[in-house]
């Protein structure tokens, strides 16, 4: 099985790019691959706990928790980007990590494929 590193800058609401990235990660994890999922910029919105499900908006928390439970999925937010937006360590959902940007580049080292989704 392989390792996929996905990096994204896109916001949770206002773009479907983050949804696509999560769906792709889910498909890879279901096939047994390992996935490192990096959130920078507006994507760090995903690393805020307490999000509610409404039919008009994306709700990805449940999918992410299911992926984390497999042990093949790692989700990490850019600490500086999160702090700049007022998301602190205590705001992070269980199982999420916060690291500096070099963690993402290090993750690409062992990755078989890297999918980088820039901001919109």
């Amino acid at each position, binding site marked *: 099985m392989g390792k996929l590193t996905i990096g994204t*800058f896109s916001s949770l609401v206002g773009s479907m790019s983050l949804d696509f990235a999560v769906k792709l990660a889910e498909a890879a994890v279901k096939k047994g691959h390992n996935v490192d999922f990096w959130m920078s910029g507006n994507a760090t919105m995903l690393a805020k706990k307490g999000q509610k499900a409404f039919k008009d908006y994306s709700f990805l928390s449940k999918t992410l928790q299911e992926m984390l439970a497999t042990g093949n999925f790692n989700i990490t937010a850019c600490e500086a980007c999160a702090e700049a937006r007022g998301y602190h360590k205590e705001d992070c959902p269980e199982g999420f990590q916060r690291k500096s940007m*070099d963690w993402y580049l290090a993750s690409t080292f062992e990755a078989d494929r*890297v999918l*980088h989704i*820039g901001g919109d």
Partner: protein
Amino acid sequence: MATRKLAFVVRSLPYKTEASRLALTHAISSQTVEIYLNDGDLVEASISYVGDGVFNVMKNQQAGKHYGITTNEGHAKNTLLLDLKVLICKEDLDKFGLTEENLVMDADDLGGDMKANIVSYSEIQKEMETADHLLFC
């Protein structure tokens, strides 16, 4: 012991979104990536500016004055203080009527010895072809 080449390709306008700034800061972070890797392993980043992305390396940006934030010009200078290959697409500069005089080409004032390179897109294509991973921003 291995090296992985990452090619950051900046094609978005400065300030309109955060994407180009994040490309620069992520590329710069390659300098400290070793703390996560085994001894001898390396991640080597290059940064190429294409399309609208060439505006990120314009001189005399006033983001501090108008937005109260650091300029992409400053980050571009920082890339030249490091061991990063910096490529700027000549065809796109021509398209916008920009020349070397308009751009951050070095960081001499900060003691850097790297230079940015204005090259044809075919050179940037070669850089992308030799990279292990591409990161479009």
